[in-house]
């Protein structure tokens, strides 16, 4: 199974950490393998076209920004 690349974009605030936890939980629930990284450099965040954090990218594609997604909201996005 290919590894999914997940990025959490956020400058280290509480919401960002919550999103990381939720993303990891979503991955675990689906028994997938994923590489989760946390991008904290504001310039890197801007390069991805994101202005409001926390944001989430899956395989390089921005799927959510500005709010904390729950594991249930993330799961369907991981499945295709």
């Amino acid at each position: 199974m290919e590894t999914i690349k997940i990025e959490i974009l956020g400058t280290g605030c509480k919401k960002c950490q919550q999103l990381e936890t939720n993303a990891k939980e979503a991955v675990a629930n689906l028994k997938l393998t994923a590489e989760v990284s946390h991008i904290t450099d504001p310039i890197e965040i801007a390069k991805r076209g994101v202005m409001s954090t926390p944001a989430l990218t899956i395989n390089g594609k921005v799927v959510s920004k500005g709010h904390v997604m729950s594991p249930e909201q993330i799961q369907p996005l991981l499945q295709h």
Partner: protein
Amino acid sequence: MFDPFYPFDWLATQIVTQLLGLSITSHLGSSLHFFLYDVPKVLTLLIVISFLVGTFQSFLEPERVRFLLQGKRTFVGNILAALVGIVTPFCSCSAVPLFIGFLEAGVPLGVTFSYLMAAPMVNEVAVILLWGLFGLKVTLIYIGFGVGLAIVSGYIIGQLKIEKWVEPFVWELQKARQVTPLEDADTLEPVALTWRQRFEQGQFQSSEILRSVWLYVVIGIAIGAGIHGYVPTDFITQYAGADNPLAVPLAVVLGVPLYANIAGVMPITEALVNKGMPMGTVLAFTMAVTALSLPEIVILKKVLRPQLLAMFVGLMTVGIISIGYIFNALLT
């Protein structure tokens, strides 16, 4: 005038006079009344307003703001940006992504600055504390002058044509974006939120703010209560009164490093105002705490050349000190 905080006042008075049998004019009695009145009042305001703000902010994503400000060149753009800054969420952690995102999409530099100045100055915690501690009139004055300052400073930056003082990589990003737009980020359908989700966001915001500031509020009010009951009025007017010309600049300098502690510092200033510290000094101090935050300056260094950063800080400092002086002159 109708006082929405009357029940809090009544309750605090009852506790001090009936339950504890103290005179409201005694040292201990007036200190206790100050504490028992302010703590429930400020915490209630914090919970209610941050919940409302958190709920309604979910309607104003930065993308929408950026779209609104795109290509606005003149004074109108600065006014619009500063007004939008009042209602949008802002945290110094998102200053750089916002800055780059705005410029990339063609929002002029001066207009971007008007937004960046107004947004942190008129934030919910500052507004709640001003309203709760100094009343609605002072709060509206604060918002009015803050927005005015953001409009004028942003306009000046726009007129100076100093785009060269923005780090060059920002403009390279802008060029690259014009050739190949970031499709996924721009076409990403904003998730249609239900009212329930919006309320949840409001609740999240409210509990987050309460958790991070309640202790500062209580400690600040306790110190304020001590000053209120025990420090003689002459002492304050002598050192921080209207006739001390250094009080305003000093308040601004003191305000800069106090970024995170506005919740604890404002109740202390309330007590100082009761003892004769003039309102202009307080307004200048509050603006310095919110608008000239050290973490924001450090983070903006990533995208601004030192010259522009110095101009940003300089314009704000001069503006804030002037507002303080104007106010003290008008009110005395």
